[in-house]
């Protein structure tokens, strides 16, 4: 048997598993998005009604736009914070490099709920931060806006996803040649201009890879807004969630879900095109 044939046989069970557990459900979700609901029965006759509902509802359009905008904000913030951190780990840390990386990842292993719980304890009106500030005498009345606000949601989202951004950027910084920065300096570039014209473009693949991971996770996030966002905590995902639960409109829920997937797919494709032009992506995929 040739190597290729062995490889195909090894891959076959994985392809089968992903197809049945992941792709088949998504396919049936797609099918359902063209059905409709009559009281408690699902009418299995094709219709574009659900997609029309989404397009004509300013609530759904607003929530969808908000999900992507908010994810974009989180990507930008993690990108800005992530650059110095990734640079530091890749270029300044001589020994114990892996310790720095592992330490950054450790909070991730606490699980979604434990992390959100911790932030609730920290930010609540009667919580740790407010009572500490009151006790020390910095403030006289508790700051209520700390928890249950869009700000709280974004702080927690940045906290959740920063390690992924740093990982992506770190890979790029590791393969960045120090001599290029020295050369830029020798040629008279200031620190800022060297960053803008050398470092930033050369680490862009890491930014895109890390950014894509953060983006996907932030778009799909509903627990954090729900549990720390308060009144601002309604997201498109929680709206889909309601349609599957209490509202019992699976077809409309499916249509919104597929609208989200289609927009996400567009972002994946765009990133893949940009990443595909870089050398290391070709090295990973190999064969060309």
């Amino acid at each position, binding site marked *: 048997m040739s190597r290729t044939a062995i490889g195909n046989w*090894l891959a076959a069970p994985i392809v089968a598993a992903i197809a049945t*557990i992941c792709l*088949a459900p998504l396919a049936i979700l797609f099918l359902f998005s063209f059905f409709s609901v009559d009281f408690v029965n699902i009418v299995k006759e094709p219709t574009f009604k659900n997609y029309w509902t989404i397009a004509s509802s300013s609530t759904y359009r607003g929530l969808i736009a908000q999900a992507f905008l908010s994810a974009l904000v989180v990507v930008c913030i993690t990108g800005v914070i992530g650059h110095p951190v990734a640079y530091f780990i890749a270029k300044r840390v001589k020994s114990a490099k892996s310790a720095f990386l592992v330490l950054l990842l450790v909070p991730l292993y606490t699980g979604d709920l*434990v992390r959100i719980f911790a932030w609730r304890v920290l930010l609540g009106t009667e919580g740790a931060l407010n009572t500490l500030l009151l006790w020390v005498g910095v403030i006289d009345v508790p700051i209520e806006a700390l928890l249950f606000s869009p700000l709280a949601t974004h702080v927690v989202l940045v906290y959740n996803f*920063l390690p992924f951004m740093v990982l992506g950027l770190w890979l790029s910084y590791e393969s960045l040649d120090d001599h290029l920065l020295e050369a830029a300096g020798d040629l008279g570039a200031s620190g800022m201009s060297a960053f803008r014209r050398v470092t930033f473009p050369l680490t862009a693949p890491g930014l895109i890879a890390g950014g894509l991971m953060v983006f*996907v996770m932030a778009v799909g996030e509903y627990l954090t807004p729900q549990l720390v966002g308060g009144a601002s905590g309604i997201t498109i995902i929680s709206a889909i969630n309601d349609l599957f639960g209490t509202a019992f409109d699976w077809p409309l829920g499916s249509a919104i879900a597929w609208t*989200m997937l289609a927009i996400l797919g567009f972002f994946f494709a765009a990133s893949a095109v940009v990443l595909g032009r870089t050398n290391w992506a070709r090295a990973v995929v190999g064969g060309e």
Partner: protein
Amino acid sequence: MQVPTKVALPGFIGLIYAFMYLPVLVVLIFSFNNSEVFAFPLQGFTLQWYLDVLSDARLAKGFGITMMVALPVSILSTLMGALAALALTRFATSFRRFFLVLLLIPFLIPKAILAMAQLILLSELGVERSLITVITAQTVIILPFASLIIASVLIRIDPRLEEAAADLGASRFSAFRRVTMPLMKNGMMAAFFIAFVLSTSEFVLTSFVSGREQPLSVLVASDFRFNIAPTLDALAILIVVGNLALVAIGELIRLRDKY
């Protein structure tokens, strides 16, 4: 670089790491605080909350169910991850690019959407939600992580080692068993531990596809929606400590023969 950045950069990095550990630290402090509310000043030291958690029969049952899920999930995702990693790195699979994308799809789809899609499929097929559905759902979303961890180990193994074994008369299977297999063993161990941790802490998908037998993460979530009590603090710390121990074991195994 100018002088100020020499101080500013490490200072900034210190702040970021403090930010990452602040919430965990606060939970740790209050898990030993002798008060029902999370407020400063602290009211003295107690182990009461830990004792409460450890003697809670409902949580103990949830913990048992979590273990019954995590063990098969980590075994399955490690074995499947090993197959996928071998196919990606060792063999010129004819559809490698497609295969890589396919492998990443479970990670790229928002979990809540995948969960609802699975719910529709299960109800259409008339399959009851049970531990089996939790195990299959978790395995497929943990598979990308397991595959990439094992692939990261395999990619460092020199392919000439296998060629040398073949030149010395080893059959392909025997070369795999005696050269590649021992070298990838550590990657598989690391993947196993990470998969275990990811499985125990997974909540979104689990809450959708679990039936009457609810794992710890789902129980904790329903508790936490209604009240925030110091017992949850103690439980969170126990979960964190357990997870960290597993991750540390996994990392030590993976790094052991890196250099």
